[in-house]
């Protein structure tokens, strides 16, 4: 049970989209986090450096947030360790197999009308909703 927060959701979304616009217009690259993180592990240092810088920016965001806006928002987990590890494995493997995640397909891909991203976003939204339906309502917790 969470509160409906359309204002901060829209504001945060605009920042994410502005970030994707910056990276595309300045560096010429797509702000797909799964691809950026996976690409950290390669020998081409030119490719590694901008990715590492992007990830460093993401990692410093909580500090900047707390300086600008005060305490960080709540982060509430409702999963045991086994579930978290299984989910992490599926997210890591699935985003590489499907070439993208919520940012690469869901934001960057949809915004340029890529048919592959439209399909991928539809598929991961459906399987995520069905997964929640099963774990919350059919099996119960």
């Amino acid at each position: 049970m969470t509160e409906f927060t359309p204002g901060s959701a829209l504001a945060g979304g605009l920042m994410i989209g502005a970030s994707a616009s910056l990276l595309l217009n300045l560096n010429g690259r797509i702000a797909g986090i799964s691809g950026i993180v996976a690409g950290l592990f390669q020998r081409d240092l030119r490719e590694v450096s901008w990715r590492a810088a992007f990830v460093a920016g993401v990692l410093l965001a909580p500090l900047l947030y707390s300086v600008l806006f005060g305490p960080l928002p709540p982060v509430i987990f409702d999963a045991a360790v086994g579930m978290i590890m299984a989910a992490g494995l599926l997210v890591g493997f699935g985003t590489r197999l499907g070439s993208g995640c919520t940012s690469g397909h869901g934001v960057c891909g949809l915004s340029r009308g890529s048919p592959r991203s439209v399909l991928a976003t539809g598929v991961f939204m459906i399987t995520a909703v069905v997964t929640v339906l099963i774990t919350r309502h059919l099996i119960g917790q």
Partner: protein
Amino acid sequence: MLALSAFAAGLLFGLGLIVSQMVNPAKVLAFLDVTGSWDPSLAFVMVGATAASAIGYAVANSRGIPVLGDRLEIPNRRDFDARLIGGAALFGIGWGLVGLCPGPAVVMLPFGLWQGSAFVVAMLAGMGLFAALRSAKAGSSSREVGV
């Protein structure tokens, strides 16, 4: 310069994830729980993000080249394959199990919660497993383009 601009973009990206509360798995699961006590907030994240990104794409496309980089590296494949669908399906299941996707998982690391750290370790293992299987299959590896 490429690293500096990427750093700024990453900082803004992370801020957006926190401001929008995408970092809160409870919020994400409430968005995905359409038959329960549905919280549609994250639809507004998608609307804001795709709208702002669409403007950026239009600008980049009309300019043709990025300000600092050599060229626009935009995926141009339009075909559908089992890999795309299967990968997206697996990702969605993992997302729905805990409520974390890769961006929020990374931005959450400094929060110092064991759940976030364990998730990132498992996610990197999943990515590593994919890379290992692919190179075992292909025998050689080529550079990946973001999406």
